[in-house]
C-alpha cells in the first residue's frame, strides 16, 4: 500500500520529465531530418530571391569590384526601355494565344477520346507524345518543318496555294509560329488533365441528363460536362499561363528574340541582360517583374481556383 503510493508519488515528476525529454528528442530528430532541406531552401531559393530583389536596386554588373545603391534607377531605365515593353507585350500575346489554343484543343481531344469506343489508350498516347519529347530537339525539327524551301509545312500550305515563307524569320509570323509549337506541345498535357477531370464526373449525372430529355451531345456538354469541368479548366488555364510565361527554349534556339525583337519575351530578355551582357542589376529588375507576374498567377490559383469549391 505504502510502496504503491510511493511509486505513484515518485512517478509523476519523472513521468513529466520523460515526456519533456521525449518531446525534446522529437524536436531534435525533426530538425535533423529537415535541416538539409531547410538549408538548401535558403541557399538556393529564398536567399537568391532576396538577392535578386536587392540587386535590382544597385548598379552592379558581373565583374565590377563594388557597387552603388541606386534606388529605383534600374526600374526607371526599365520603364524607358522599349525592348522591355516589347518583351512584356510579346509574352502576354504568347500567353494569350497559347492558353485558349491548348485548352480548346486539349479539351476537344479529351472529349473525343473519351467518347470513342475503340482505341482510347492508343489515341491518348499519340496526343501525349509531344509532352514527352525534348522540346529543344523538337524545336530543331519544327525549324526544319517551317523551312521555306523543303519544310513540310510550306509544302502542305503550298498545296493549298499559300505562299511559302521563312515563317520564323518574318516579323509578323515568328511569334505565331512559336505559339504553334507551344500549343502542339501543351495540348497533350492539358488533355490528360481534362481526362482526369472528365472521369471524376459521376456517370449517373450523364444518365440523369439522358432521362431528363437531353438528346444531343451539345446539350449534354452545356448542361453537365462544361459546368462540372469549370474548376479543372480554370486550373489548367492557370498552369498553362505559368508555363507559357516561362517560354525560353524555343526562342533561344529558333529566333534569338528576333527578327527585330518580334519574339523578344521576358525570360529571354532576362537571359540576354544577365548572361550575355552581364548587366546583373538590370536582369534582376526584369526578374522581379517576372516574379511578380508568376506570384500573381499563383495567388490567383491558390485563392480563386482552389478555394472556389463550387459544390459539395
Amino acid at each position: 500500500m505504502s510502496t504503491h503510493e510511493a511509486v505513484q508519488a515518485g512517478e509523476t515528476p519523472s513521468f513529466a520529465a520523460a515526456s519533456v525529454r521525449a518531446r525534446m528528442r522529437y524536436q531534435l530528430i525533426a530538425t535533423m531530418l529537415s535541416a538539409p532541406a531547410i538549408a538548401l531552401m535558403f541557399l538556393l531559393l529564398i536567399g537568391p530571391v532576396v538577392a535578386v530583389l536587392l540587386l535590382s536596386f544597385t548598379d552592379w554588373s558581373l565583374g565590377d569590384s563594388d557597387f552603388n545603391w541606386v534606388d529605383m534607377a534600374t526600374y526607371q531605365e526599365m520603364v524607358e526601355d522599349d525592348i522591355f515593353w516589347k518583351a512584356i507585350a510579346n509574352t502576354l500575346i504568347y500567353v494569350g494565344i497559347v492558353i485558349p489554343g491548348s485548352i480548346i484543343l486539349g479539351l476537344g481531344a479529351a472529349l473525343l477520346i473519351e467518347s470513342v469506343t475503340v482505341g482510347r489508350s492508343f489515341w491518348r498516347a499519340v496526343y501525349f507524345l509531344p509532352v514527352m519529347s525534348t522540346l529543344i530537339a523538337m524545336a530543331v525539327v519544327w525549324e526544319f518543318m517551317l523551312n521555306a524551301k523543303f519544310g513540310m509545312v510550306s509544302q502542305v500550305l503550298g498545296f493549298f496555294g499559300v505562299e511559302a515563307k521563312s515563317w520564323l524569320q518574318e516579323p509578323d509570323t515568328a511569334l505565331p509560329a512559336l505559339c504553334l509549337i507551344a500549343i502542339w506541345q501543351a495540348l497533350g498535357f492539358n488533355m490528360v488533365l481534362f481526362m482526369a477531370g472528365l472521369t471524376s464526373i459521376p456517370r449517373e449525372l450523364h444518365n440523369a441528363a439522358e432521362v431528363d430529355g437531353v438528346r444531343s451531345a451539345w446539350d449534354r456538354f452545356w448542361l453537365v460536362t462544361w459546368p462540372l469541368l469549370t474548376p479543372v479548366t480554370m486550373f489548367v488555364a492557370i498552369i498553362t499561363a505559368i508555363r507559357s510565361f516561362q517560354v525560353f527554349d524555343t526562342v533561344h534556339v529558333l529566333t534569338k528574340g528576333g527578327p527585330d525583337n518580334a519574339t523578344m519575351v521576358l525570360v529571354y530578355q532576362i537571359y540576354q541582360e544577365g548572361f550575355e551582357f552581364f548587366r546583373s542589376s538590370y536582369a534582376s529588375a526584369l526578374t522581379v517583374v517576372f516574379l511578380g507576374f508568376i506570384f500573381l498567377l499563383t495567388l490567383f490559383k491558390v485563392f480563386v481556383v482552389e478555394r472556389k469549391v463550387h459544390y459539395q
Partner: protein
Amino acid sequence: MSSVHIQNITKSFGKVEVLKDVSLNIPDGEFVSLVGPSGCGKSTLLRIIAGLEQQSSGQIRIDDRVIDNVRPSERNISMVFQSYALYPHLSVFDNISVPLRMSRLNSIQRLPGLRHLLPGARAVEKGIRADVEQVASLLDMKQLLDRKPGELSGGQRQRVAVGRAIVREPHAFLLDEPLSNLDAKLRVHMRTEIAQLHRRLGATFIYVTHDQAEAMTMSDRIAVLMDGELVQVGSPDDVYNEPQDIRVAEFIGSPRINTFAGEIRSDGGVDLLGVPTGLVTDAEAGPAQVGLRPEALRLVPVGEGVFAGTVTHIENLGAELMVHFVNENMERPAIIRLDHIERHRLDVGESIEIDFLPGAVRLFGPDGARVPTEEFMEKQLVNA
C-alpha cells in the same frame, strides 16, 4: 400514365447472364417493387426500362408502343437515381426545371443566358416557373428552391430528385434504391411519403430495392428477382404468405423464416425433424425443407409440444421478443416470435417446447420449389 410491359428480357455482360427471360406486365397506375439481394439484376432491369442499358433480347413496351430502339430521352420516363444525380452547379429550382426546359425550349433558347433574353423563351420560362413551384409546394420544399444541392441534407436532396422526376408527366416513374443513402429513421418516414405520393399521382411506379421491408410496405405488387430470374410476382401478402420458392420465403420477412430439415414419406406424409406435421402431399418421397415463420411457432407447456429445444438467445424488441432456440436435430437456431407478456417464463439455457399450426407450414422440395400440401388427418390415418 401508362402500362409497362416487359417481355422475355435477357441481358448478358460478356459471358455473365444477369437477366434470364424476365417477363412482367405492369398495369397503369400500379406500384411495383423489384426486390432481391444485391447482384440479382434488379437495377439492370430498371436501367433497361429507362433505356440506359440495352437488353440482349426481349422487348419493352409502354402501352402498345415498342420502345427498344428509343433513346432514354425520347421514352418520357423519369427516374430517381440512387445517388440522386442532382446537377451540383444548379440550384434546386434549376435542377427541377431541367426536364421542362429540355422539352419546352429549343436548342438555341437553351443556351446559357439566352433563355432570359429571347422573348419566346421568357414566356416559356414563366410557365416552367409555375410548374416547378407547384411541385415544390407539393413536396413542401419551396424554401429550398434557391439552394445548391451541396447545401442540402440527404433527405432534402432525395426530395429534389423526386421533384425533378414528377415535374413532368412521364409514362412511368423509375426509382432506383432511392432511400438507401438515408439514415434509418428518415428512410421509414420517406417510405410513407413515397407511398402517399404514389396514391396522389396515381402514376405507374417501378421501385427497385434490396430492402424487403420497403417493398412490403409500399407496393401493390412485389416482383422478386433471384440470380437474374423473376421467381415470384404477387401482392405483399401473397409473397409473404405463399412464397413459391424457398429463396423468396427466406428473403421476404424479418426475422427470416425458419427452415427445418423435413422429409416426404413414401405414404405422402410430411415429417419435420422426424415428427409428423399432419400434412400430406402428392409429391415424390424424399428429403424436403419445411418453412415456418417465427410467428407461426407457439410456445406450449411442457408435454404438449411437437418438439423441444433450448433457448440460446433472446432479442428484446420492446413490444415483442425474438427467442432463439436450438435442438440436436436442427442445423442452426430457429426463432420464435413472442408477445412481451410471455417474457417472464424464459431465460437463456432454459428448455422449451414448441408447437405449430399445420396450416402455417410451407413445404419446399429439394430444388427449393414450393410443394403443395393438404391438411388431411384422415388420409394420414388411413395410410398409417
